[in-house]
């Protein structure tokens, strides 16, 4: 697929979890972890999803891979409706959609050598003969900047950054087109973060990869992403080109987020846009705009009606009455 065409489309994705588990009783409350999210990702680009804990960004990523079954919605990948696939067909499809997790220590089996971990997807998908796979594993380790001789070692022998490289090699094993990177550098020290971010960019160019990059770290997202979506309490509240979104954030929540990031420059000075309150501690559904209890610019209609996500400049969408009325 040539760059720039839509590789993945997500329509009105929802994932609800029951709250409280009374045996045999219907749950009274549902948490709308993902609540009607739509976006698309073009081939070759990196779309960032940012938001704070509980915003639904991780659940969105998991739903796309069907690691979590969505409640409703439609996900079209390379022309195929993923939610219509039978489990077997989905497993075959996963060759093309892979994932990198935050904590490679938790996602690597401590009793398997890293060579075996990287080889495992090749065995599952019956790729190559044994000697061919061994060659492939060494090439993959080299590809992510590890010594191929490390194949016989175990995860505990490596640092966090090296383990994340192993996680990336494993994700690349089946030559996927699309990778969901869920907080891939959040657990790493800053000096190592930069190494992994650079590696992800090099691999993207080398293999023509498309990324969905999920992170709460705004600076990393600005650095690596072509476009960024901002999520708040299960909703996509703003979506646009990275430059535009960081230069002129339209949604008050994006403005709050952007102005909350500490700047490693004591003389820069920054004007903070302050939220009115802390995020809600309960899962109760908020009527109107989900951000209205914290919004510094709240208007009357925000409390009763939910603003739709509208394109107000070419390629820049926002769900806010203030931004769309201006």
């Amino acid at each position, binding site marked *: 697929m040539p760059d720039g065409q839509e590789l993945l489309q997500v329509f009105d994705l929802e994932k609800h979890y029951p709250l409280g588990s009374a045996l045999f009783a219907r749950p009274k409350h549902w948490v709308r972890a993902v609540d009607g999210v739509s976006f698309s990702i073009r081939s070759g680009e990196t779309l960032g999803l940012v938001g*704070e*804990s509980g915003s639904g960004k991780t659940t969105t990523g998991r739903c796309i891979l069907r690691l979590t079954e969505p409640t409703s919605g439609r996900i079209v990948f390379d022309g195929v409706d993923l939610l219509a696939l039978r489990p077997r067909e989905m497993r075959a499809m996963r060759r093309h959609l892979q994932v990198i997790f935050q904590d490679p220590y938790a996602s690597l089996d401590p009793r398997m050598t890293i060579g075996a971990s990287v080889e495992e997807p090749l065995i599952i998908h019956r790729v190559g003969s044994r000697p061919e796979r061994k060659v492939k594993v060494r090439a993959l380790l080299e590809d992510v900047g590890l010594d191929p001789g490390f194949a016989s070692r175990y995860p505990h022998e490596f*640092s966090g*950054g*090296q383990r994340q490289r192993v996680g990336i090699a494993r994700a690349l094993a089946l030559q996927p087109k699309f990778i969901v990177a869920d907080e891939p550098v959040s657990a790493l*020290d*800053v*000096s*190592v*973060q*930069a*190494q992994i*971010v*650079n590696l992800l*960019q090099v691999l993207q160019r080398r293999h023509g990869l498309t990324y969905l990059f999920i992170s*709460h*770290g*705004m*600076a*990393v997202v*600005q*650095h690596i992403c072509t476009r960024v979506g901002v999520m708040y309490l299960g909703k996509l509240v703003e979506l646009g080109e990275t*430059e535009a979104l*960081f*230069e002129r954030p339209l949604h008050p929540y994006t403005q*709050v*987020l*952007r102005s*909350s*990031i*500490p*700047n*490693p*420059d*004591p*003389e820069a000075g920054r004007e*903070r846009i302050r*939220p009115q*309150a*802390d*995020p*809600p*501690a309960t899962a109760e559904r908020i009527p109107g705009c989900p951000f209205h209890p914290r919004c510094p610019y709240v208007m009357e209609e925000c409390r009763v009606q939910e603003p739709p996500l509208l394109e107000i400049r070419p390629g820049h969408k926002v769900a806010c009455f203030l931004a769309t009325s201006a």
Partner: protein
Amino acid sequence: MAEPLLEIADLQTHLFTDRGVVRAVDGVSFSIERGASLGLVGESGCGKSITGLSIIRLLPPSARMVGGAIRFEGQNLLELPAEPMRRLRGRRIAMVFQDPMTSLNPVFTVGTQIAEPLVVHENLSRRAAWDRAVELMRQVAIPDPARRARSYPHELSGGMRQRAMIAMAISCGPALLIADEPTTALDVTIQAEILELLGRLRRDMGLSILLITHDLGVVAENTDDVAVMYAGKIVERGSVREIFRSPQHPYTIGLLRCVPRITTAGDRQGRLETIEGVVPNPFELPPGCAFAPRCPEARAECDLGEIDPYLASEGHVVRCVARGSSVRKTSLDKTA
């Protein structure tokens, strides 16, 4: 000049493990004036948390302070008997940790837990301590404190729990607050609120703050001075303004370069600067500068022995041969 509130001199805290001895804190010295704040920054395993725990003497069982001095309000805490140390803790020196959920007791209400030290340390009645707890919660900007005091920790959001921890920490009016990654587990909007709160308490109460963090951005905006730690040693120390404007140690320079920043249009770098290599194995630290194996400016002398601190400018100390530090040649000392 009055003597500083806290003065640490050549502190040595070692971990005694099955695999050998780790010099987690290896000759750390710094001081904090009354009402001042110091940011102690470094990556995981550099010894910054062990330094904080050494001050209040709440070290894990494997750790022991084997040398140096910690002078606080005229006393050397290393020599203080257990009982006066216990009275000091909470009362004169308080600490806040990264994860408030593990520091709060889930079976007591937040108000009860904030009132507890007031009963123990200040001999207040239960009733008076409770009222004071509610007042403290108001001071740390917990909305509706009278009702919130009756809540259990799980009923509060992460930010509210951290505020409750801070209320508890300041309840006996300490002179020094040690905050170990107080905002690392929190979302960025809440982080900003908590840091503002700490700044306000510092001004209002004349509190000194030791802020331990891995985040240079947090230090840049919230402390007067900064000390950068690497593999158990402070490699550079000075005012925030000075260190961020003209960092001297190659490690500090590298750290500042590799942090991605929010930039303005057209400024986006294609590639982030990195510090190549990894942190050395704590069991096999090199004899000289521990950063030398990763350092772009390393030279033969770096490996010869202990690197002495060098005064780069007023109040700005760096340990680096390439910047003027001399080397104490340990190998030669032994033969002499």
